[in-house]
């Protein structure tokens, strides 16, 4: 649906199935970015002329757009960052480095993306916290029982994806948060794969910190969001220092910082990114996240049913939920499969998808991943299936 909103899909036979990596951008997002350059380029919060005042207001309004979209309590709980990775690094090194001590335990899972693993590994090396893994069930999902079993009196943080990027399991964040909070554990949620596909309500789910990227929700690259409950964000020590975040500084080294959110946004921000992100959130909201979820769920079922008919395809996450399907063509390396599909302008991802620990879960390191969006269609899936049916000719095609 809504394919007409995307110039890139017009007069093109491209089948874009790599939405977990990045999404295509609707024309309204493109226009928001271009308008900033064509009509009112200015820095924000620093000029007394009309364009600066206009852009400042638009920038601040975007914070409110995002607050509303994720149902945060206050716009100051929304911090603009470069993306999920940047947000998670801020959370780990700005907050937890200063609030955890040696021996404290962090719980993650083996199916997390690198951006929710490596910062914790580094923190473990730096201050001696311990990274532990919550076991997954037979379907590679995180259950409340397994979470409960992994918690010890040293557990201080649970840091998990809402939807994982290879398995595509949807975690019950609200229940997980309840369990965490009953043990005084803080919950960090990586919403990179969920924000564009399922309702995320930080208040209802009672999330402590959350991260997502603009480019995975039809917005520009290089922009993302760090959400934190106000009282926690207040305690987050800035990782970057400079202009825009200080209130006063003197020759003797005395510095006072601005209040949230400015304190955590040093330097001239990615203004075009923020304006584009605001537009993309409004765009998604207008279609309706529940409608999107319903459509993508249907599409996923269609894809699974079709792929199940092919006896030379091994699917790894058939019984999970999100619109992400991971598979291999038997006896074909995933990258060769991706190159073959590209001959037919079908864009998929091959590899380990930045979740290198997942190989221990699947017992296979590299897979082909299809991640769907609302602009994908059953006809595109039919084309994929036909191309796969002819994949016995793969070597004639790619060698």
């Amino acid at each position: 649906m809504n394919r007409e909103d995307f110039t890139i899909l017009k007069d093109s036979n491209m089948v874009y199935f790599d939405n977990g990596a990045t999404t295509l951008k609707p024309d309204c997002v493109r226009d928001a970015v271009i308008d900033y350059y064509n009509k009112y380029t200015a820095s924000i919060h620093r000029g007394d002329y009309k364009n600066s005042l206009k852009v400042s207001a638009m920038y601040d309004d975007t914070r409110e757009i995002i607050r509303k979209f994720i149902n945060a309590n206050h716009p100051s709980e929304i911090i603009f960052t470069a993306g999920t990775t940047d947000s998670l690094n801020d959370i780990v090194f700005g907050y937890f480095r200063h609030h955890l001590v040696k021996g404290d335990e962090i719980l993650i899972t083996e199916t997390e993306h690198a951006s929710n693993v490596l910062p914790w590994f580094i923190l473990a090396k730096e201050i001696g916290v311990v990274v532990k893994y919550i076991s997954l069930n037979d379907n590679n999902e995180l259950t409340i029982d397994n979470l409960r079993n992994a918690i010890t009196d040293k557990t201080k943080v649970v840091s998990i994806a809402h939807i994982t990027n290879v398995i595509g399991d949807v975690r019950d964040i609200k229940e997980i948060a309840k369990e965490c909070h009953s043990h005084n554990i803080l919950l960090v949620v990586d919403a990179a794969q969920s924000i564009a596909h399922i309702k995320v309500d930080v208040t209802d789910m009672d999330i402590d910190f959350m991260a997502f990227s603009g480019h995975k929700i039809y917005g520009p690259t290089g922009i993302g969001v760090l959400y934190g409950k106000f009282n926690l964000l207040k305690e987050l020590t800035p990782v970057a220092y400079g202009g825009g975040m200080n209130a006063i500084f003197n020759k003797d080294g005395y510095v006072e910082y601005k209040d949230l959110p400015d304190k955590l946004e040093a330097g001239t921000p990615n203004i075009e990114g923020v304006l584009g992100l605001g537009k993309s959130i409004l765009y998604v909201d207008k279609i309706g996240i529940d409608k999107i979820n319903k459509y993508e769920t249907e599409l996923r079922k269609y894809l699974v049913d079709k792929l199940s008919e092919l006896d030379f395809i091994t699917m790894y996450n058939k019984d999970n939920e999100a619109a992400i399907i991971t598979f291999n063509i038997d006896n074909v390396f995933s990258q060769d499969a991706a190159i073959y599909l590209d001959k037919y302008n079908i864009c998929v991802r091959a590899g380990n998808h930045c979740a290198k620990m997942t190989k221990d879960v699947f017992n296979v390191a590299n897979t082909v991943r299809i991640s769907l969006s609302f602009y994908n269609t059953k006809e595109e899936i039919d084309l994929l299936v036909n191309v796969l049916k002819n994949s016995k000719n793969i070597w004639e095609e790619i060698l």
Partner: protein
Amino acid sequence: MDNDMKRSIILDNYSNARNRGIPDNSDDYIMINSNNQSCIDNINIYVKLKDGVIEDIKYEGEACVIAISSTSIISSMLIGKTLKEANELLGNYFNMIEEKEYDKELLGEANVYEDMYKQPSRKTCATLFARGITNLLKGKE
């Protein structure tokens, strides 16, 4: 060599890759990992050297059709060669991939990759093994 012939040599060396596997007595071998940072090819290469001669080569890992087949072909060509001969062969192979002058005679079956320069993104696949073993042999002469 026509394309059908090239394809069948590549496929044969992919499906029935020669010298593949981890050596039983790995203590006798020097090991090096070779991977492509831009993609997902990743193999461990094991080389057994004796008196300046490559006595055996094994490898194991996950990689695409070009990477595995070229590893199979080149490893077979290198077994029994002196280090000097091996380096000469590898040097010629890199030259072919980079579209420089090279000795076609010397490269035998490896000539199946003579057009690889036309697909720049796959050059790294075709040189996965060659780069790894070149590093491993450095300073051994």
